């Protein structure tokens, strides 16, 4: 009534000599099937990227205009065997839609709500551009960009805009013509930005307009003096050597910026950072990062952060010298300011 449960591997006892006999038909079967299995896996592996690539954007670039409308440009792989392709747009208020196929043929499009039917007629890649007014909203002074992106994308912000909130991590950031361009991952993204007023721009960058004029006048006077000196000297056919020295002196004078000027140009820098700048300046305008660590008795990371901070502020530049960081006070700081 209660038969003893015997594990399968114990049903057949081993022979006296302890040899294990294994049925070979199964292995032969498996060996015959393995090449088939491998072949089918190769096919699957080859097809999968093709399948996933159709209808997914190859590139996606967005530009936000100052009025909150957004320009979308995308390149999409499509099935060359179909006559048309239905593109999901990012909203329904669309303007200026252009779809171009291979060989730059303008493709016929029909926008219906938030999708566009594009007559691809054998194209395997299409380029679509359009303007959309649904991605950015404004509340008070805060502009909010939100998108559920189908792929990684770039987003170029308007000039003078400052990001003040975001829900995800950017992959990269670039500055293009004074505008911030972020590279972001696919999925839901929400970014808040504000337009900085002239006051805040001045406080962020510590720029004052009259400085430009002053520097331009000084530069102009110096340049005129140098040109005048050269002209007079040439006309008198004197030896040029002393003039060269004079020129060199002048350039070094203009190139070397004293610490007071730096602190005037960059009033926001921290007191401990000012000490570092003073030391570098007294050290002939350059110092190794290791020297700074020794001088200020700071750990490696703290000093690295301080140096990076000064680099970001545009006060110093970092060069590699014999596998060490050589920190130099920037010579063209005034010009840039």
């Amino acid at each position, binding site marked *: 009534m209660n038969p003893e449960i015997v594990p399968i591997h114990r049903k057949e006892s081993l022979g006296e000599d302890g040899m294990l006999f294994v049925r070979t038909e199964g292995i032969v079967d498996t060996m015959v099937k393995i090449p088939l299995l491998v072949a089918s896996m190769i096919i699957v592996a080859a097809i999968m990227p093709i399948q996933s690539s159709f209808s997914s954007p190859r590139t996606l670039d967005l530009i936000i205009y100052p009025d909150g409308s957004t320009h979308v440009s995308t390149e999409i792989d499509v099935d060359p065997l179909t006559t048309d392709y239905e593109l999901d747009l990012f909203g329904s208020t669309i303007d200026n839609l252009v779809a171009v196929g291979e060989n730059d043929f303008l493709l*016929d499009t029909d926008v219906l709500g938030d999708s566009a039917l594009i007559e691809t007629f054998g194209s395997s890649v299409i380029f679509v551009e359009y303007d959309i007014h649904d991605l950015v909203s404004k509340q008070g002074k805060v502009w909010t960009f939100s998108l559920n992106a189908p792929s990684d994308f770039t987003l170029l912000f308007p000039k003078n805009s400052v*990001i*003040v909130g975001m829900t995800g991590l950017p992959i990269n950031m670039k500055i293009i013509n004074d505008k911030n361009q972020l590279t972001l991952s696919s999925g839901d993204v929400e970014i*808040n930005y504000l337009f900085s007023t002239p006051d805040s721009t001045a*406080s962020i960058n510590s720029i004052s307009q009259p400085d430009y004029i002053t520097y331009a006048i000084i530069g102009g006077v110096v340049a005129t003096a140098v040109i005048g000196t050269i002209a007079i000297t040439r006309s008198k056919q004197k030896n040029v050597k002393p003039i060269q020295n004079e020129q060199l002196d002048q350039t070094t004078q203009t190139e070397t910026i004293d610490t007071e000027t730096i602190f005037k140009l960059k009033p926001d820098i921290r007191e401990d950072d000012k000490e570092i700048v003073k030391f570098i300046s007294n050290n002939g305008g350059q110092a190794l990062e290791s020297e700074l660590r020794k001088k200020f008795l700071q750990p490696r990371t703290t000093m690295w952060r301080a140096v990076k901070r000064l680099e970001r502020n545009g006060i110093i530049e970092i060069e590699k010298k014999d596998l060490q960081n050589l920190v130099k006070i920037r010579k063209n700081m005034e010009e840039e300011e």
Partner: protein
Amino acid sequence: MKTLAIFTILVLVFGTVSTSLVSDAYAQNDPNILLQIAEQADKQIKNQLDRSFGDSVPSDIENLYDQGHKAVESLEESLPDDVKQAREDFLTAMKLFQKISRMTSTYTTEAKVTASDASDRDLKSELNRLDKYFQNLKSISEKQNTGIELYKIQKLFALANEQIDSGDNQEAAKTIEEIKSLIVSIKKHIRDYSSNSASDRVKKFALKQLERIQNILDKANPKIPELEEANSLVKQIETLISEDKISDAKKKFGELNKIIKIIKKSIR
């Protein structure tokens, strides 16, 4: 042999699965950009608070700002060694700043509007968008040698820019409307031109497609009611193509494709 085969299978399985994993992976080029963005946001929020409230910043907002500022400091401390912590600090700071900017908006303002609702028209942005659109069309037109005259519209763009710069918005709006209607006619010209010059391409594609569709029809159950209509459309398309009536053929193709979808389902 067996080991090799199993190894190959494992590699293929990994290769197949890894494509889906890669898209979820997160790669950041330089963690310093987090600090740059956060510091910029911190400064902007501080300026915003100073301007909006002066010395009397509401305590709830001040608390949030303090937390956000601390998160930025912590982010700075975390770099370059602890990137994971830096990311957390960045998200914390940006979420707090986001909250502050929303709160300051509600203190000061009005309802939420989308860009399309905004009543005050930004003519410069509108002109820039139109220019981008026009540049696209111009590039297509030049590549296809359509010979369309673009001088007039280019002149209008320059005029609209001048009008906007001089503050003559009323005239600028009129010029922009003129540009829009010109762009519509340029696009129509290009489309007509490309549909003529592209007829060979479409013909080639259509004949290839008809061959493929015919194969599907041959396999279909002869009792399906749509089959007769499909066969008739195939013949009509062939005739239209032979007569060079490409745009009519395109329309018929649309109808045929719908029927083919139904027939395909019945084959399965």
